[in-house]
């Protein structure tokens, strides 16, 4: 995975993640209607069980797989001598920096089967988006993130998200900005280390 072009989304995984449970629900429903027309208990089981399993899959399985792949990536990085000096975990992406060698490792939620290790010097731009909008008493934000561009691909890593809008001096927003500022400094210093 080293020095490979960064790919944020594995389209096959994305489609499987969304569509396989849907196909399973329809398949089981079809089997229930076709082969068990008189057996109501089996037919209702074939209709409800895949639906419940699908909801569980969409709710928990993706995240569990992502966490498992994160552990695998950390073991692989440790074996390669990658010094994990800073790790930032968001729901969509994990960024790990090696401040000594000036490298970063990336793992994406929608592409959990491959991780990317690249010199931080390949980052062409890094900035913080505090999501601030509105004026006066309406000024606030519901998302804080840091963004960076690698090989022309923009990667956004959220440090705070909410379904509500918060004032810019709220503790949530300040914590999010602080985390984003820290990661920007970490990535910049790793880039300087890489030369």
């Amino acid at each position: 995975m080293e020095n490979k072009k960064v790919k944020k989304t594995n389209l096959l995984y994305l489609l499987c993640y969304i569509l396989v449970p849907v196909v399973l629900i329809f398949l089981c429903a079809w089997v229930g209607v076709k082969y068990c027309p008189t057996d109501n208990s089996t037919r209702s089981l074939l209709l409800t069980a895949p639906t419940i399993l699908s909801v569980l899959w969409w709710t928990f399985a993706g995240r569990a797989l992502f966490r498992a792949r994160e552990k695998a990536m950390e073991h692989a990085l440790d074996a390669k001598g990658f010094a994990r000096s800073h790790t930032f975990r968001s729901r969509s992406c994990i960024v790990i920096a090696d401040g000594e060698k000036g490298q970063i490792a990336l793992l994406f939620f929608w592409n959990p089967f491959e991780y990317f290790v690249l010199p931080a010097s390949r980052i062409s731009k890094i900035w913080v988006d505090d999501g601030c909008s509105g004026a006066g008493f309406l000024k606030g934000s519901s998302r804080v993130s840091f963004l960076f561009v690698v090989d022309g691909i923009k990667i956004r890593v959220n440090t705070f998200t909410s379904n509500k809008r918060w004032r810019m001096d709220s503790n949530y927003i300040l914590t999010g900005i602080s985390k984003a500022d820290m990661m920007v400094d970490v990535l910049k210093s790793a880039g300087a280390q890489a030369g």
Partner: protein
Amino acid sequence: MDVTLRRLYTLPMTVGHYIPHKDAEYYRRNLSRAACRADIPAGVYACEAIAYRCPGCGRRIVMLSIFLPVRDLDKWQDSYLFSRGELDDFLGLP
């Protein structure tokens, strides 16, 4: 109360990893002096030590205010008062 000393320190804790400590010994071992606010790296907790002295009775109190500096704002975290001279020698108070 008169303010006799005001100093800025950094703590070895970063944002998202704050653990409260009430023990003065922790601060004696882990506070690092920061010359000014601009010297504190992003995402690192800061601590302002303020020593007060009562002009009437001479009693001293040291207050540690722990906060996270975020650009031009501060996210206040904790404040601790030490009134039994626990930090006097560390701060070099007479």
